[in-house]
């Protein structure tokens, strides 16, 4: 296991690369879901305003 983690002496370069990529992948998921949630929230508000104005 420690041999695997050592990456033949390249651990200091290999693991940060994989770590950063993981962060970028996770951030893309979080950002996309947040954008959709925010757009839905905003659309709901627009609808509520219109309904309020009609009645």
């Amino acid at each position, binding site marked *: 296991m420690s041999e695997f983690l050592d990456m033949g002496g390249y651990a200091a370069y290999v693991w940060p690369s994989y770590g950063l990529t993981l962060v970028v992948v996770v951030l*893309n998921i979080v950002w996309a879901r947040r954008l959709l949630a925010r757009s839905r929230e905003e659309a709901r508000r627009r609808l509520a305003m219109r309904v309020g104005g009609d009645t």
Partner: protein
Amino acid sequence: MASWTWFHRLGSPPYIYSLAARLTPWFAWPAAALILGGLYGGLVLAPPDYQQGDGFRIIYVHAPSAWMSLMVYMTMAISAGVGLIWRMKVAHAVAASCAPIGASFTFCALVTGSLWGQPMWGTFWEWDPRLTSELILLFLYLGYMGLRSAMEDVQRADRSSAVLAVVGIVNVPIIHYSVTWWKSLHQAPSVMKLARPAMPPSMLIPLLMMLLGFTLFFVAVLLVRLRGEVLSRERSASWIREAVSP
């Protein structure tokens, strides 16, 4: 006439919104499976490189990120062009959805490349054609996003940023061919030589899995973002009521 109906349906926001929602899991789960399989193959099963030892394993995250940076840009620029020519809102929404994804993976490609360059070339950064043109790509993405966020009106933002995206296409072949046109520190492509691959299958297959996995991941993220972009462009349609009802 009939052959054009698909095009009109693709331009219809309610259709796109529900289609995107239904398609997302079909891209997300295969992406997850391919990436997990590729990680295991790349980190555990593939043998160390005869020159670079285990350091070469950075390729399994670097090459997919670099591929994403270009593929996402092409998707963005082509959609932006379609939006400009046919005044298609949905195409602009696709382009706008691409930018943050592309920018993040371009950044990832630059940093993982730098982490690979240090032990192999002895430097984190060199003003080399490949590296410089990839950095310009990051600035194109950031410029595109900055231009959009500077404009209050979505339609104006769509049109102006689309022009920038289309003009920026000239950088894509420069990046791709930089390693063959100029003497570059960067190694020549190792995947695209299908006739005589530069890698044994045990190294190549995990890489192909990662490339395909990242591509499917891009589509899944794009579909989620696209729903948000389509919804925020819609001002009057009654289908919004349906879309946002919990």
